[in-house]
């Protein structure tokens, strides 16, 4: 996997896929069994974390509880390896605090902050440095939805403004879609597809990759349900926008979920579950039938690999 300079690369995958492990290998917190890691053209396999010049943000804020926000932010700059002059430290802290909107909390003790503020300090502690790469492990997942949306936009803006290189781990696909320049999909330790969010969404190379992005999840059904076997197609994938209503096979309405801006319709078609999106203001009765058919679906063989 190559992470270009200035890229925002998101590693996407479920628990156990190897996302955090990859991050820890790059940072040097974990030892490689085989292979090579190079940063800026330099092979770093034998280097310690401190030597690799990476900055890391963890899922659990990990602030120094006995220090103030200011001192938490200053800590990495005061390390004997960097030996930053105090004047420079002050300047850096002010700049980062302003960008993360925590300037008024600088003198608070690290424990006197809300969850969102703690996470911002945690991110700030990485941003005060200018490493080759920032490594972030699900930094927003323990925050409530509203704060997550705000910080998502802020992080993207900071990264774009600083031109920073970022490797970001998440299982949240909205984060992947909106923030990434590149998405790396992991499956049990293997990188199965690497490309822009749009590519991964529109052109997945397998059922697994297709299922990683898209809310609600893509519907994977036997191709024969709609008579679409041929050329080795065993399964078809239909996202809501690839399902046409009004003709095709009858499906029973099992549940109607009103989410405000969209309504999710849960259907059953010959024993298969299908979820699609419909206009919020049309009424669907549970137990009634609607006709559906695929509209330019994705085709997969029986190993789950994409054919066309």
């Amino acid at each position, binding site marked *: 996997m190559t992470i270009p300079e200035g890229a925002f690369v998101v590693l996407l995958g479920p*628990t156990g896929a190897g996302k955090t492990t990859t991050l820890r290998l790059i940072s040097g917190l974990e030892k490689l069994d085989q292979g090579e890691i190079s940063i800026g053209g330099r092979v770093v396999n034998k280097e310690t974390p401190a030597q690799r010049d990476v900055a890391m943000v963890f899922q659990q804020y990990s602030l120094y509880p006995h220090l103030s926000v200011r001192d938490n932010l200053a800590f990495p700059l005061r390390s004997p390896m960097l030996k930053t002059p105090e004047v420079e430290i002050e300047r850096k802290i002010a700049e980062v605090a302003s960008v993360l909107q925590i300037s008024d909390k600088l003198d608070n003790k690290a424990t006197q902050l809300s969850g969102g503020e703690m996470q911002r300090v945690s991110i700030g502690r990485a941003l005060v440095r200018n490493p080759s790469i920032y490594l972030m492990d*699900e930094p927003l*997942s323990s925050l409530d*939805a509203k704060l997550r949306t705000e910080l998502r*936009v802020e992080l993207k803006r900071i990264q774009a403004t600083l031109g920073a290189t970022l490797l970001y781990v998440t299982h949240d696909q909205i984060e992947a879609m*909106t923030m990434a320049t590149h998405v790396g999909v992991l499956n049990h330790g293997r990188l199965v597809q690497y490309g822009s969010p*749009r590519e991964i969404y529109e052109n997945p190379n397998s059922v697994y990759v297709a299922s990683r992005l898209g809310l609600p999840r893509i519907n994977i059904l036997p191709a024969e349900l709609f008579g679409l076997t041929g050329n080795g197609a065993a399964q078809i994938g239909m*996202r809501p926008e690839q399902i046409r209503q009004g003709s095709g096979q009858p499906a029973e309405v099992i549940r109607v979920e009103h989410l405000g801006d969209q309504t999710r319709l849960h259907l059953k078609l010959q024993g298969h579950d299908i979820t699609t999106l419909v206009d919020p203001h049309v009424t669907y009765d549970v137990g009634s039938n609607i006709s559906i058919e695929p509209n330019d679906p994705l085709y997969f063989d029986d190993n789950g690999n994409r054919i066309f």
Partner: protein
Amino acid sequence: MIAGLELPTSGEIYLDGEEISQRPPSQRDIACVFQMFALNPHMNVRKNILYPLVSLGMRRADIKAKVAEVSNILGINDILDRPTGGLSGGDRQRVALARAIVRDPKAFMMDEPLGALDAEFREHMSEELRALHDRMKATTVYVTHDQLEAMQMGDKIVVMNNAVVEQFGEPQEIYDKPATMFVADFIGSPSMNFLRFEGAVQKGDNSVTLSGIRLAVPKQLQDLQGDLVFGVRPEQISFTDDGAYRGLVLAVEYLGTTQIVTLETPNGDLKARVNSSQVINVGDRVGLNFNPATITLFHEQSGRAIVSELNSGVLANG
């Protein structure tokens, strides 16, 4: 207060027609599920589940049957003899649920039951909970700060702010017809856009003027003036080449089927949700159309929605 873990200082609580506000928890037929599971650490799974039935004095054979039934429903047969210690968050929550269900109570109180589960698993578990509810038809009061969870799970939603009920209604209703700016902002992601302007509204008006441009709204049923807010949801905004009210595109976020476009307008920033097939670039200047039938006007100081033909039915209920 409903479960009896706190006593109200005033007011009444009726469960199945009976007033229970001063009764201790043990005398209310209500089972609770908490965020931190609260399993008995020194008992194994089976014991945790049958304990409440033992306390109720149920017969052994009946207890055995009940536990079997409930562990089948929750799919925890294979962990019944395990200690609670090594269980995953999801399994612990299933055990907590089993312990609550086994009593067959009149109602369940669930306090952020998914809060301690890892984010990915939460989605799966919320589907499980909803399916469980549908199967058992159990009256449930469910607390969450996650508005999406509320919309997905609830038949009805009570939106609370500072100990006051701001709105009580079906998910689609409170989404389409928010009673206050707090509700409008809290439900929906991205939240409702608020365009602020100074103006006056009179009974019978069907438009307002923002930065000199007239925008259509549902027929207003109140007289009000001062600092007002024009509320429009992201998916109710569309772009047009001509169009008097204009915005400057600040950011575009691709979400697969749709994209979120952030724009700067004369009355503030707003977010629009449009189809991904539309080509939009940062820096574009576009005309904006707001779907008139969906607009809610608010009075800034009180935060309350101005009564109109759109929401008069809903606001009448309080």
